[in-house]
C-alpha cells in the first residue's frame, strides 16, 4: 500500500488499530477493553505461568492428534471419492452435510459419547477439519486433466504408477489448500471444544479469566491464539506457493 508516495508495510494497519485500542482503553470507558499495553504486559507474564504452559501443551496435543487424524482420513477418503463413483455416492451427501453444519452444536453430544476430557476435544478438532480436506482432495483428483491421464497411459503408465506419478502430483495444490483451510478450522475446533468442555486446556483458562473478570489475561490469551492461527496458515501458504509455482501452467 502507498500513502503520499511512502510505502506502508502490510502490518501497519494492525498498528493503527492497536493505537486506537490503547486510546479507548486509557479512556477507561468499559472494563471489557483494558489498554493494549497492559494486555501485552499481562501476556508476557501469562506465558511464564505453569498453568498457561500446561494448558498449551494439552491444547497442542489435542490439536496435533485431531489434525493428524483429519489429514490421515480426509486426504485418502477425498482421493477415493474422486476416483471411484461408488465411494462418492456413498459419502458425498454426508461430507457435504457436515462441511456446512454448525458443528459446535454437536459438541455436547460428543461430551456424552467421549466424556469430559481430551478425547472430546480431539474429536471436535477432527470434525471441524476433516470435511473441507475431503472435499478439496476430491476436487483435486477430479480436476486432473484428461489429456494428462491419456498422456500417462499412452506412454505406458497404468494403475498405481499412473496414480503416484500423475494423479497425486496433479491434485497436490488442491490437497494442500484443503489442509490449510482444515488447519484454520481445526484451531476453531480446539478452542470451541475446550471452552464447551471447559475443564481442560485453554477452555479452562478462558472460563477462569472471564468468570473472574481478568480481562487483560483474557485478551492476552485471545491474541496468542490469533497469532498462532495466522502463523500456521502462513506456514502452509508458503508450501502452497511453491507447489503453485510448478502448477502454474494449468
Amino acid at each position: 500500500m502507498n500513502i503520499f508516495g511512502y510505502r506502508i508495510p502490510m502490518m501497519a494497519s494492525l498498528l493503527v488499530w492497536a493505537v486506537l485500542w490503547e486510546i479507548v482503553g486509557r479512556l477507561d470507558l468499559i472494563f471489557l477493553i483494558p489498554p493494549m499495553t497492559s494486555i501485552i504486559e499481562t501476556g508476557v507474564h501469562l506465558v511464564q505461568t505453569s498453568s498457561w504452559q500446561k494448558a498449551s501443551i494439552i491444547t497442542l496435543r489435542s490439536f496435533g492428534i485431531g489434525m493428524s487424524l483429519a489429514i490421515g482420513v480426509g486426504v485418502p477418503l477425498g482421493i477415493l471419492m474422486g476416483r471411484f463413483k461408488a465411494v462418492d455416492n456413498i459419502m458425498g451427501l454426508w461430507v457435504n452435510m457436515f462441511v456446512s453444519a454448525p458443528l459446535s452444536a454437536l459438541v455436547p453430544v460428543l461430551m456424552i459419547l467421549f466424556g469430559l476430557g481430551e478425547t472430546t476435544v480431539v474429536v471436535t478438532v477432527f470434525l471441524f477439519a476433516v470435511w473441507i480436506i475431503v472435499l478439496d482432495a476430491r476436487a483435486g483428483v477430479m480436476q486432473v486433466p484428461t489429456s494428462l491421464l491419456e498422456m500417462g497411459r499412452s506412454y505406458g503408465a497404468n494403475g498405481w504408477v499412473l496414480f503416484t506419478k500423475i494423479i497425486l502430483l496433479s491434485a497436490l495444490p488442491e490437497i494442500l489448500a484443503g489442509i490449510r483451510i482444515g488447519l484454520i478450522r481445526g484451531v476453531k475446533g480446539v478452542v470451541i471444544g475446550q471452552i464447551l468442555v471447559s475443564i481442560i486446556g485453554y477452555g479452562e483458562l478462558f472460563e477462569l479469566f472471564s468468570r473472574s473478570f481478568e480481562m487483560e489475561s483474557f485478551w492476552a490469551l485471545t491474541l496468542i491464539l490469533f497469532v498462532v492461527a495466522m502463523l500456521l496458515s502462513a506456514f502452509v501458504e508458503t508450501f502452497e506457493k511453491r507447489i503453485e509455482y510448478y502448477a502454474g501452467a494449468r
Partner: protein
Amino acid sequence: MQLSAIPAVQPSAPVTSNDPVVQVRSICKTYGDIEALRNIDLEFSRGKLTTLLGPSGCGKTTLLKIIAGLVPANSGEIRVNGRAVTGPGPERAFVFQDFALMPWATVMRNVAFGLELRGVNAAERKRVATRYIEEVGLAGFEEKYPHELSGGMRQRVGIARAFAVNADVLLLDEPFSAVDEQNRRKFQEDLLRLVDLEKKTFIFVTHSIEEAVYVSDRIVLLSPRPGRISQVIDPKIDRSASPDDIRRDPGYLDTVEEIWDGLRHYVD
C-alpha cells in the same frame, strides 16, 4: 564368417509404400446414440506422413485415439506391425493438442517421461532426452518448467517426448492448433525436417487444409457424422524446394483447391 550375418546388413523392414505399419480394419465407433465412425478401412505406409483431415465432428481425433489405444472401438481391429493391438504400446507415441505436459516437472523430466516409465536408468534417460531437446530446438531450456515456456515451445517439448521413446509410429493430434500463426509455419517446416531426419511413420490430425497439403505425403479426407473416408489424396509436390516455393507451387495450390471443393458442401 557365416552367411547368416549378411541379412543383418539389410534394413529389417523394406521401406516401400506397400508396407503398412498401421492397418485399420472396419473400425466402428459410437458414443451413445451418436455414430462417430463408420466402417473405416485404412493403411498407413511406413516412413510416410499421412494426414487425417476433415471438418470438426468428423471423428478424426477419435480415429487417432483408437489407433493410439486410448479409446476402445466398438468393432473392427487395429494392427501395428502386423499385430492386433487393444491398448497403448511402445511402438506408438502420442503428441497432444493441449501439450499434456506435467506442470511440476522440468523440460528434461517431461521429455524423458516415456523412458522413465519404461525403467530406463537416469543417465541413459538424460542422454536421450538431451539429444531430442536439442533436435526440437530447445537446448538451454532443459531445467525450465512448462509455465515458463511459450505455447510453441511447450509443444516442442511434447514432440521431443514422443521422439525420445523411439516409437515406430508418431500420432499427432492437431499439434499446432494451440500455437500462434507465425509459430505454426515455422513448426510445419520443422516437422518436415524431423520427418526427413527421423524416418518414422507419422499420422497427423488437422483441420487446416493448407497445413495438411504442406506437410503430407497422403491426405485422408473424412466426412462428418458418421465419419467415413470420403477421399484419399496424394499431393504431388516437390518437397526439396524451399518452404516459400512449396507454398507457391501450382501443385500445392491445386491440391488445396481440390480438397476445398470436396469439403465445401459439408460447411454449407
